[in-house]
């Protein structure tokens, strides 16, 4: 049985009713428990929990401190290519969007790596559009081999792969994978992803599990908040993380909480997620999954990112460019080919200062590659 069967048990109507049925008493009862069930998680995501956000914050803060200490691990994304065969209606890489398309040569990958490594960054997340013909598994593998010379941790956020392909990348030194389901709403999903390989809901949904089986050390999942009713997607994301953590205890399961951002293209966002709702989501997730990593990207504003460091976040991106080759490129050479606009444009140094000023330690290295050592 895959997570698909569990997910399918919660249709949108049933979730709507359950969320609306939660009461103040349910929230108090949940907060009093040491470990909460999926039902309790749903309670903390419900409208009834909104007046208890401060109580949730106190609990989430203590749990995070206990399990992670006062530390925030830093990473930066590296866009290898923006060729894409999908038509995701909300994405700047949509094949119909008129943007400058490119792919880094191996020499360019090395140049980008040198520029990023010179800042002190140790964790790199490589991204491509969904275009196998251009960014083949072999191309990605060759890029990983270059990047391994500069970074102890290299993760991927690319198209969904087979288990064998994930295993091959893990063997070549990839230690983490990120896969956003975007929305768990099976009916809405094909509307948002009208064509291209990403149209296959089930193949994408099962990708994190395939990577767990393939030996990835860290598996990071998430929904793009703002595509559907956020409480539904937040609940199913947590449920998915819980499923993976229980079934693959040797894998570090993490969750990202990306909110919709503006980009090239025209997508009318119908479900806007407020700051309060983002915080409620973060706190509920931390209380439900005390040991899970939680990532907040530069999609969020600097001030908001500073404030939520105390609430359960363990990983943040910094020094970000979402353009292909954007790290080595001079600022005025920008070709407007970014996947989305970032909100927090602080450099790595500025980000470290901000983390320290909040009483936290920026962590650069949190993994020693084991493969290929003595």
């Amino acid at each position, binding site marked *: 049985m895959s997570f698909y069967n569990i997910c399918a048990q919660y249709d949108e109507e049933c979730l709507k009713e359950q969320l609306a049925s939660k009461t103040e008493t349910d929230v108090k009862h949940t907060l009093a428990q040491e470990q909460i069930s999926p039902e309790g998680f749903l309670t903390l995501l419900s409208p009834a929990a909104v007046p208890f956000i401060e109580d949730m914050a106190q609990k989430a803060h203590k749990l995070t*401190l*206990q*399990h*992670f*200490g*006062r*530390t925030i691990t830093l990473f930066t994304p590296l866009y290898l290519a923006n060729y894409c065969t999908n038509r995701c209606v909300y994405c700047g890489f949509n094949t119909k969007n008129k943007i400058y398309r490119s792919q880094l040569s191996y020499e360019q990958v090395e140049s980008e790596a040198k520029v990023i490594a010179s800042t*002190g960054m*140790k964790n790199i997340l490589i991204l491509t559009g969904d275009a196998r013909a251009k960014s083949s598994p072999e191309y990605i593998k060759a890029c990983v081999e270059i990047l391994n010379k500069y970074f102890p941790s290299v993760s991927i956020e690319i198209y969904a792969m087979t288990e064998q392909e994930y295993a091959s990348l893990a063997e070549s030194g990839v230690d983490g994978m990120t896969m956003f389901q975007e929305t768990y709403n099976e009916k809405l999903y094909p509307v948002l992803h009208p064509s291209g390989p990403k149209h296959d809901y089930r193949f994408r949904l099962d990708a994190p599990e395939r990577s767990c089986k393939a030996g990835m050390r860290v598996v990071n999942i998430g929904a793009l908040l703002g595509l559907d009713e956020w409480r539904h997607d937040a609940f199913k994301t947590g449920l998915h993380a819980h499923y993976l*953590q*229980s079934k693959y*205890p*040797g*894998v*570090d*399961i993490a969750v990202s909480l990306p909110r919709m951002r503006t980009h090239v293209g025209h997508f009318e966002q119908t479900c806007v997620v407020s700051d309060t709702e983002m915080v409620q989501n973060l706190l509920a997730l931390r209380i439900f999954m005390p*040991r899970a990593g939680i990532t907040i990207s530069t999609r969020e504003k600097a001030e908001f990112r500073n404030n939520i460091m105390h609430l359960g976040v363990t990983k943040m991106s910094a020094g970000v460019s979402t353009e292909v080759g954007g790290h080595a490129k001079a600022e005025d050479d920008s070709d407007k080919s970014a996947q989305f606009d970032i909100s927090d444009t602080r450099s790595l140094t500025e980000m470290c200062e901000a983390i*320290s000023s909040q*009483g*936290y*330690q920026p*962590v*650069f*290295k*949190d*993994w*020693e590659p*084991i493969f290929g*050592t*003595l």
Partner: protein
Amino acid sequence: MIDDVLEIGKVKFKSRLLIGTGKYADDSIIPAVCDSSESQIITVAMRRVDFNATTENVMDFIPKNMQLLPNTSGARTAEEAVRIARLAKAAGCGDWIKIEVISDNKYLLPDGYETIKATEILAKEGFTVLPYVNADLYIARALVDAGAAAVMPLGSPIGTNRGLKTREMTRILIEEIKLPIIVDAGIGRPSEACEAMEMGADACLVNTAIATANDPVKMAKAFSNAVKAGREAYLSGPGAKSNLAQASSPLTGFLTEGQ
């Protein structure tokens, strides 16, 4: 008390408190924590050490006079733990190693079987091996046979600050295992460290409880005092416990009067 030393792998220590380097808001506080804890052994996760550091590195803050105890945090198998240990040695971190083999990231409980395998390999290679394990007599005996220099049973799961939940099992290890027993993980308060030492544990390793305290330097001092107090109490031989009150004017005293 002058001769009361902790001996691990032929090295003698006055302090019986081991500390860690993780979870601090700023690594620059580590020297002050070392100082106030009076600890002589400090563990550091190899996964966090930047061997090519161009910026600040946790190793820069560890006092040179302390015994470095690299740990294999992140290892999921014996093979991975062995690789990390060898890497630590090759990087100049010495030949002491704390084996942590954990393949359950939810509870972070150690895998005894893989830990025994790693201990055997590394002990044969000349490492001073301190394995972190569940408080289990059979595992502890196997570790003795595998060449461990000490046994480090958990008080409760890592980072939980839940205290000495394994009290009875740890007591059995103290009684039965001739190697130093170092209670590692879960100790959340100085009173719990004191309790472990009173029971006869040889030492305690404390990280989370110090690192996440509002004042880590003061908390390190508190743990130092607690470990010393517990040790002194153990050496003093506490009086026996009884479930019944011992009447100061016994009713049957007449039976022995005049004998």
